[in-house]
């Protein structure tokens, strides 16, 4: 499992790259592997105002549809529309070209609730033990 040190993580398996008040988000390597081959991404609309933990995008694999939850509250200011034609980038490069969107954060304190790489790996490991 690839878990870059410089990112923050949510318990819904999204990663967050913090750049001042803007955060770029995507799904983690663990999440893309669990989903299997991604065949469709329903991106949020630009300008959409989301609240933390609400479902605001969908990632559909050959076997199922999964919601993407907003890790923080804010406004969607960028979307990765390359995914409309190349949804497989979510599998191939989840932390790079497979990013989903960028949100302008409205409640910066919510960032404190995210996990660092080490905590996220422990969280995933704990989850897999329960199976």
């Amino acid at each position, binding site marked *: 499992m690839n878990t870059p040190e410089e990112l923050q993580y949510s318990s819904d*398996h999204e990663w967050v790259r913090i750049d001042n008040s803007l955060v770029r988000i995507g799904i983690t390597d663990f*999440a893309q592997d*669990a989903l*299997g*081959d991604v*065949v*469709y991404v*329903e991106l949020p609309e630009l300008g959409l105002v989301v609240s933390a933990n609400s479902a605001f995008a*969908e990632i*559909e694999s*050959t*076997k199922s*549809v*999964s919601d993407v939850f907003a890790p923080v509250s804010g406004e969607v200011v960028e979307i990765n529309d390359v995914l*409309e*034609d190349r*949804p497989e980038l979510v*599998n191939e490069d989840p932390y790079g070209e497979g990013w989903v969107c960028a949100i302008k954060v409205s409640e910066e304190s919510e960032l404190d609730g995210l996990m660092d790489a080490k905590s996220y790996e422990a969280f995933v490991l704990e*989850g897999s033990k*329960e*199976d």
Partner: protein
Amino acid sequence: MSEPSKSRTTKLSPLDPLHRERGAKFASFAGFELPMSFDGTISEHLATRSQAGLFDVSHMGIIDLVPKSGCPLSTVIECLESITPASIGDLGAGGLRYALLTNDQGGIVDDLIVSRYQDHLRLVLNASRVEPDIRVLEAAVGSHAQVNHREDLAQLALQGPKAVDVLSGLAPMVANLSFMNFGEFSIDGIDCSVSRSGYTGEDGFELVAPSINIVRLAEKLLSDNTVAPCGLGARDSLRLEAGLCLYGHEIDETITPIEARLAWTIPRRRREHPTFAGAELIMAQLSNGVQRTRVGISSLTRRPIRDGAILRTEQGLEIGVVTSGGFGPSCDAPVAMGYAERSFSQPETSLAAEVRGKEVPCRIHSLPFIPHNYIRN
């Protein structure tokens, strides 16, 4: 994201240790825990269309109908024909036939493959239908034949254009088999029934062998690097593109063979003397047509249309439902099957599918999506 907890009654394939060794991802299907994928559903699907894929189909039920002493096989066949509109009587030894079991209302109890041996019949049927099938088989043929559930046997499917090269390297004579025929072969010293058949639309073989030998047989086939291990995900997308029905989706006890566009399984002899269960309704539908019919559906967007989506006209009138759907890797587009009212079932008819509250524009598509590549020698 978490996997459902394993029920105590979950059955495992005899190939389970091999699947785990090869890093399969698992899913529950018809009471079995089976591989969903190995390298990835899309790459497995494409490998099968271009080369060869190996599928564990050991969950399928295998039932032998063995005539009781003094009873001719022809009597057993006659009894079997009372619950299927297929013709089994004209099936020669070494032949396979796709058949539907029907109920008194004309609905489909199961779809299965009948193999005609010299002295008995073998039925390969859906894992989820073993119990109801045994009930109707016992009732129809039980007084003339033993209904033996062969849990000592396991089954592999080797599918794809290179399957014949791989398998004939181990048993040269398999190359002479024609589509829907079978024979007995020794493969690496293992006695197998090998049929030229499958569920992908491609050329290929299905191999039945004793469960105790199945891991060795699978390892032998996988030692050829043109063969990709494949899971249920690829099996489903391959059969969907090939326009083949899946029990519980396109067919069930409330759907007739005519609605399912499987009238081709009812040959003339059976239509002239319709002695099978449900004949009254089925024959009336053959004459008068049906209200709803099975169709292919292609999405006009990249968004897959899945099982359960309601089909509507452009004016919003509900005219059908999707029964299977997903991404078709060889079509590089979403593909689906379902049922539509007859007047909206012509190819190119524009419709909308309701997918999680959103309208997805789609069209009726002729079946199959990908032409079949069967070899008839």
